[in-house]
């Protein structure tokens, strides 16, 4: 698919500027953006939140919210400017020539219409009669690999899973064979394994029907795997546009470089390599700018950058909006952010340094629905955590990885006493820990703290940062109020925030800054154990690295134990010394960080590793896909809980018998009926980068 062979581009966006009006002021969400999508091309648009990528996608669909207006530019589809068309004319284009796959499958389907009907109604406008439309709908459902299409067609959206709904939306989008699919983060919010099969599906469909895609995402891996061409957007501007392989291998814009440096590669570990990330915080859309939009965060900024750079054509098909692209290309200027501090020395777990031990911890919730259920004793139980035994050493990080519903967060909350455990013991520094907070002394509370996933909800919005930091000092460390104030300032310094932040309110801070404050709060009482529940997943990519580094540094310095909960094996692999893989409340595999990426894997770990989109367009990965969705924790399968989806399913043994915990040489564990040797024999290494990755084990 070379450019020369398709002289007439399918989609051309020319100098598009879109402005939003909010609270009486208007600001540009997209400024002077031009891009071209060729016939049959998959074009990726990467950017963080607020970069304008979704606005751009909606402009291409000619479907902007009321508060947005196009201020200039053109959107040409096959040479015709969509922006000049009225709604009536667009109706002949929507669905038929361009189709849209939205981000949120939960709200994007009409809740009170059956799936089949929703699929069919678009077809009926093409003149199909009801029977034909239904036939076509069923075949489309089959095309997107939905099991039992007639049943699905009769379902309402709430009766099927998120992944299935996304497939329905894709079926809907391709139903009338459009030339261009505009996809707005179609897999965000889905589990990794589900995402992998949806991405497979999209790739497959596009190839077979030779459609073009404009694929919008914040996920570097997904775009790397999906797109032929990738453009990077930042603060409403397009900063770099290149063929995917070229962009990932030789980025010419410092922001692209920073973005790539912000996320750990699968197999990288903090003990060997330090993430660089991007300094500073992303600009807010209302800021007025002159000069280069990336100026404030750029390691290569010079006076010249105060003049806005144009998009320089650096090579055939590669443009970059940087004054210094030539120096970068020549290697005379390093676009990477300076590495701050060195990572701590590698350590290995030693006996006797254990701070926290879990013994057969079990958490069940009654699924109470009404008084009537209580009386009829039909209480069903959510088996969230099942017989988990783990230990955490001082100064070490335990990574807990699992998909949604795996019980990983519940386990964290149980350790902290925010959720009552049903049975099992937890020992903190050798002493048994009461089940709930109410039974724990302030001293005990001080020893265990938590960092929460959602930075927007981590703080009382009406309290100043100083107050937020003072409370644990006063309540848990017994600091007198005046002393607490000065300690709060030093806590801010410890998380690299200026002291004047003390007077600010959480809403005045960026996400990364808030998560730093959360870290400061968590460490205020000098905890022995810190639970971090997806601490970076709600942050923009470019600030994730800094938070991750900070968390790591403080933990190492304070020598506390860390339980890091995440769905992202790459992040877990980077931060953790020991990794535990959890599925339906059960630990499937426990292994030292380096070991988890090498065979033998637990079959579930193997599938997870296979599902993670490598941030390397030319990387290689085994294709292991799980069937269907994970069962609900209310109906945990007997035997091995993973047997319903296991690609290495043996038969009745897996169905009936609880698999044994097989110990590995390094003290790891794999819960499987298949022996370790056999696993090792049949399992290749799941993934391989096209070139060696720094610090990878």
């Amino acid at each position: 698919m070379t450019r020369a062979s398709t002289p007439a581009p399918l989609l051309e966006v020319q100098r598009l500027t879109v402005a939003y009006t909010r609270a009486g002021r208007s600001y540009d969400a997209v400024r002077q953006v031009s891009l071209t999508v060729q016939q049959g091309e998959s074009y990726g648009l990467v950017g963080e939140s607020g970069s304008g990528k979704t606005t751009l996608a909606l402009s291409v669909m000619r479907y902007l919210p009321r508060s947005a207006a196009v201020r200039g530019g053109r959107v040409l589809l096959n040479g015709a400017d969509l922006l000049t068309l009225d709604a009536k004319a667009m109706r002949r284009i929507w669905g038929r020539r361009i189709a849209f796959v939205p981000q949120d499958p939960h709200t994007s389907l009409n809740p009170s219409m059956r799936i089949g009907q929703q699929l069919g109604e678009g077809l009926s406008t093409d003149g199909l009669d009801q029977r034909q439309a239904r036939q076509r709908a069923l075949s489309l459902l089959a095309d997107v690999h939905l099991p039992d299409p007639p049943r699905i067609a009769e379902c309402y959206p709430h009766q099927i899973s998120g992944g299935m709904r996304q497939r329905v939306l894709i079926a809907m989008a391709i139903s009338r064979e459009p030339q261009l699919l505009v996809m707005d983060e179609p897999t965000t919010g889905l589990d990794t394994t589900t995402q992998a099969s949806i991405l497979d599906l999209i790739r497959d469909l596009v190839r077979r029907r030779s459609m073009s895609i404009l694929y919008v995402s914040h996920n570097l891996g997904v775009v790397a795997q999906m797109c032929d061409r990738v453009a990077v957007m930042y603060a409403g501007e397009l900063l770099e546009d290149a063929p995917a392989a070229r962009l990932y291998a030789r980025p010419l814009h410092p922001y692209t470089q920073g973005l790539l440096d912000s996320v750990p590669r699968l197999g990288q570990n903090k003990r060997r390599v330090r993430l660089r990330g991007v300094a500073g915080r992303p600009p807010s859309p209302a800021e007025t700018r002159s000069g280069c939009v990336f100026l404030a965060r750029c390691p290569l900024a010079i006076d010249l950058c105060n003049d806005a750079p144009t998009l320089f054509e650096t090579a055939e098909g590669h443009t970059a909006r940087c004054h210094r692209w030539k120096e970068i290309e020549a290697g005379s200027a390093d676009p990477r952010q300076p590495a701050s501090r060195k990572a701590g020395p590698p350590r290995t777990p030693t006996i006797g340094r254990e701070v926290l031990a879990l013994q057969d911890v079990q958490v069940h919730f009654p699924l109470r629905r009404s008084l009537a259920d209580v009386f009829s004793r039909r209480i069903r139980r959510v088996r969230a955590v099942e017989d988990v035994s783990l230990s955490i050493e001082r100064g070490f990080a335990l990574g807990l990885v699992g998909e949604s519903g795996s019980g990983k967060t519940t386990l964290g909350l149980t350790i902290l006493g925010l959720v009552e455990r049903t049975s099992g013991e937890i020992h903190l520094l050798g002493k048994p820990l009461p089940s709930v907070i109410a039974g724990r002394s302030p001293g005990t509370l001080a020893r265990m703290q938590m960092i929460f996933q959602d930075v927007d909800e981590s703080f009382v919005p009406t309290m100043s940062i100083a107050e937020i930091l003072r409370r644990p000092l006063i309540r848990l460390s017994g600091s007198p109020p005046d002393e607490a104030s000065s300690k709060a300032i030093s806590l801010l310094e410890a998380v690299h925030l200026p002291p004047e932040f003390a007077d600010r309110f959480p809403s005045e801070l960026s996400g990364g800054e808030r998560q730093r404050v959360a870290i400061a709060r968590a460490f205020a009482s000098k905890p022995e154990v810190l639970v971090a529940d997806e601490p970076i997943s709600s942050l923009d990519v470019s600030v994730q690295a800094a938070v991750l580094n900070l968390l790591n540094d403080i933990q190492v310095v304070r020598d506390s134990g860390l339980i890091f909960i995440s769905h992202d094996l790459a992040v877990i692999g980077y931060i953790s010394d020991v990794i535990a893989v959890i599925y339906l409340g059960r630990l499937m595999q426990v292994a030292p960080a380096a070991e988890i990426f090498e065979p033998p894997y637990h079959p579930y770990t193997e599938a997870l590793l296979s599902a993670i989109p490598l941030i390397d367009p030319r990387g290689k990965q085994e294709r292991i896909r799980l069937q269907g969705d994970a069962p609900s924790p209310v109906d945990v399968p007997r035997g091995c809980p993973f047997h319903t989806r296991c690609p290495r399913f043996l038969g009745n043994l897996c169905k009936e018998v609880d698999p044994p915990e097989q110990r590995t040489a390094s003290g790891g564990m794999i819960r499987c009926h298949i022996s370790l040797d056999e696993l090792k024999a049949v399992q290749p290494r799941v993934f391989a980068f096209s070139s060696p990755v720094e610090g990878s084990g």
Partner: protein
Amino acid sequence: MTTEARSARAGLRAIPGLVLSLAAVVAAACATGSSSATSPAEPEKVVRIGIQPIAQTDPALISSDSEVLIANQVYDYLIDIDESNRLAARLATDWSVSPDGLEYTFDLAQGVTFHDGSAFTARDVVWTFDRLRDPASGYPTADLYSGITDIRAVDDHQVTFTLLKTNPFFLFDLADNHALVLKADTAFPDRGFNGTGPYRVVEYVPPDRIVMEANTDYFAGAPQLDGLEITFFADTSSAVEALQGGQLDFIMGLSTPQYDSLTQADGVQTQIVDTNGFVAVRLRTDRSPGNDPRVIQALNLATDRQSLFEVVRRGYGSVGASSPIGPVYTDYFDPSASPPPRDPQAARALLEEAGYKEVLKLDMYMLNTGDYPDLGAALKAQWAEAGIDVSLQLVPEGVYYGEGKWLDVDLGITGWAHRPYPQFYLDVMLVCGAKWNESHFCDPEFDRLAGLAGSTSDLQTRASAYRQIQQILVDRGPLIVPYFFAQFGATSERVQGLKLKPFPGRTDFRNVSLAP
């Protein structure tokens, strides 16, 4: 999908469907309503009356204008009182008094039948009045008729009343609002309407309406109307609008602004009649602060009766003084017995003298209907200038009278209905220890004069006693009577021959007719 599409469309179609079904409900409801409605071939001559809702239908217990109005159509009085406060024959066609003034003999009308068809005889009269005077009954008339020692039927058409002592007002007493003749041995007088009166009850739907048809067998001649349709209105303003809108033919108990506005309205005839009905503003004299004569004097000085009369009654009726004897009683009224002119400063000085240095705070109780709120407001404003701070307490009738509040409170405004002669007021509201002596007034000289007036058969003696009484009340009485009011009523243009009585409930519909 087909079924689904259909049900979606059905859902949308359900909206007009809902409208249709509602329309059907309405139509059905109207239809059922019409089946019970009489649809006359020719227009009936029915007078439509709007009055306040009633609580009582037992003649012995009725009190409001509305209740009396209904009873007066269904039943007959032995003796009636006309619009000029004169006695008039009704069931009693003639009467005579023994020379000692102790025995009254009445001739009764012949050929009178009750609505149930039974004949009216002297026994019914005896039974009726024996019931009314029975002290054990607790009926309000028990006191009034306590002077009767015996009631005897001479024959079917003659009855004799024997008195303990002479009573110059006895015939008026027999014309009392409650003295309607019932069928002897009526077990539940409050559950039926078996009278001899000019109209018989066809339908009573409490508390909506009561429908009557003319009693064509009425002994004094059938009424000219075919019937009466009485609808109850809790709010007289609403009745006024209904009259103006042509839905009513007669309303009464109007406020002054209502009367005023109706005088200018098209298609409406207004009625006005002077009465001795009045309102009494009174302070209890048996306890502080009213037991200090200076306080009562101050209240008098703070009050401008003429202004109240003009503002609240807009000059309809007559200005009052300090006694219940008004100008309607031409024989007894003394225009010279008038209170001192208003002087708020003097009133303030008196109050200071009485120990109320800053302000005298009082709660003033009254009904929440009619002119009371206006009067209260006007009084409050006048008194404020004399340093009297009044807080108005407007209460519903059931509370004011029902709980005996009116007899208990310090400061109150009570309305007293019109009576054909003045003795009643003195005996029940001012004589020491009287049943409704709301001011708890007690004055031996007054009592002596009241006793004299109530027993002498000599008009001169009585008139002189009444004059002295009026002077005593000006000098040291507990009452402020701002005005004697006129009663207002209104009819539609087609009503003819209706004369509003001073007690509007006694208004007669026997000779009312409708213009063609």
